C-alpha cells in the first residue's frame, strides 16, 4: 500500500511538473521608442514598448499623458500582432513638451509589471 501511495505521488508530481515546464516570467521593459527619459526633435507617431515576455493583450495597458496629466494618445493600444512582446499606441501630432508614458504589462502567465517614464519633444 505504501508503495502504491508513493507511485501516485511521483506520478502526480511528474504530471504537474510537465504541465508547468513551459516557464514564463514577469514581463520586464527591455526597450522603449522613444527611449526612456529621452529628448527628441521630432514628435513620434507611436510609442512602442519592448518587453522580455509575451504579453496578454486583454489585460496589458499603455497610455501617454501630457504635462498637465491629460491623455494624448489615440486610445488604440494593442499588442503588436507580429511581435507579441511589443505593446504600442499611436499618437497624434504632439506639440513640444514633456510627456509621460504609463504602462501595465500582463505576461501570458498573468504576472503583472508596471512602470512609467517621460520623454520630451523638442526642448
Amino acid at each position, binding site marked *: 500500500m505504501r508503495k502504491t501511495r508513493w507511485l*501516485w505521488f511521483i506520478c502526480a508530481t511528474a504530471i504537474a511538473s510537465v504541465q*508547468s515546464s513551459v516557464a514564463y516570467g514577469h514581463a520586464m521593459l527591455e526597450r522603449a521608442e522613444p527611449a*526612456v527619459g529621452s529628448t527628441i526633435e521630432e514628435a513620434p507617431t507611436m510609442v512602442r514598448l519592448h518587453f*522580455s515576455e509575451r504579453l496578454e493583450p486583454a489585460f496589458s495597458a499603455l497610455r501617454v499623458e501630457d504635462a498637465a496629466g491629460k491623455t494624448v494618445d489615440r486610445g488604440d493600444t494593442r499588442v503588436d500582432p507580429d511581435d507579441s512582446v511589443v505593446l504600442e499606441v499611436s499618437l497624434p501630432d504632439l506639440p513640444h513638451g514633456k510627456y509621460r508614458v504609463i504602462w501595465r504589462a500582463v505576461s501570458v502567465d*498573468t504576472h503583472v509589471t508596471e512602470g*512609467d*517614464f517621460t520623454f520630451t519633444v523638442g526642448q
Partner: protein
Amino acid sequence: MKFRMFFAAALTAAVTLPIHVDAHGFAGKRFFPATLTTDDPFVADELSLPTVTSVPNSTSGGAPQTRETDVGVDMSKRITPDFGVGFDETWQNFKTEEDGSVSGFANLGVSAKYLLLKSDPSEFLLSVGLDAEIGGTGSKNVGADEFSTLTPSIFFGKGFGDLPESVALVRPFAVTGAVGVDFPTESRSAGQDGEIERHPHVLNVGVAIEYSMLYLQSNVRDIELGAPFNHMIPMVEVNLQTPLDRGAAGQTTATINPGFVWSGQFMQIGLEAIVPVNDRSGNGPGVIGQIHFYLDDIFPKTLGRPIFGGTP
C-alpha cells in the same frame, strides 16, 4: 481509493485554479531582488541553491585562525499570497592550519513570514516573521547548539521612485532591512570543554542599500547599458549583531558587504565581499556568492504560487 481521489483532486486544483499574479519582490514599479545576507521583506516562492560563503574567522580571545566555508540551501513557499514558510540548512567546514578541518551540518532553520503592508505608489513593504533554529539537529563537530533559538523579526523595503523629478537619478535607490532579536531557549549550557557557556539575547540588524539599473533603464533614463549590466543591481549590505545581556552585552560584531545582484528572467546571481568592521567580526575579508531561483516564474502554475488563495 480515497487516496487516489485525493491526489486526483489535488492535481486538478494545481493545474486549474487561478494564479496569483504578484510575486517575488514587487511593489508597484519596484522590483526588490533577494539580498544575500539580509532577510527579504517580501513573501515569495524562491530557492537559494547554493549560497556559498568563505570567511576567515576572528582570532580574538585566543581563538585559533580558522577559515569557515559554508554551503547553504534556503527555500521559501507561499501558503497564502501574504503568508509563507521556509527552511534553510547549511553545511559547514572549519579549516585550521594546525588541526586540519572539521565539517558537518548546522542546525536546521525554519521560518514563517507575513506581509503586513504593501504600498505600490510608495514602493513600500512591511513584514513580520519568526525564524527558529532547531537545536540538536546539527553536528556537534561544527558547534551546532543543543538548544533552539527563536528570532522574531520585522522586515521592510522602500524604493525611492516617489521622489520628485528634480532628483530623478536618485529614484533607482532602494533600501531593505530586517531587525530581530535572538531568544535562545536555554540561558546557559556546558561547552565541549566542560565550561559553562552563557547564551545572550542578541539584536540582529541588517540593511541593504541598492541601486537598480533595471529601474534606471525602465523608469528614469535609458543610458543604453547593454547586457549584462542593464540587469545589474549594485548594493551594499550591512549586518550587525549585538549581544544584549548575560555577560556579553555590547560586544558587537558587524560586516559591510559590497557587491551586486544580476537579475534575470528566472533566477539571479549575487556576489559580495564580506568586510569585518572590528577584530571580533573576522580576521580579514571574505566572500559570499549565491544562485537564487524565482520559483513563481519557473513553475507559475504549481510550485510557484500560493497553496491557498491568489486570484488574478
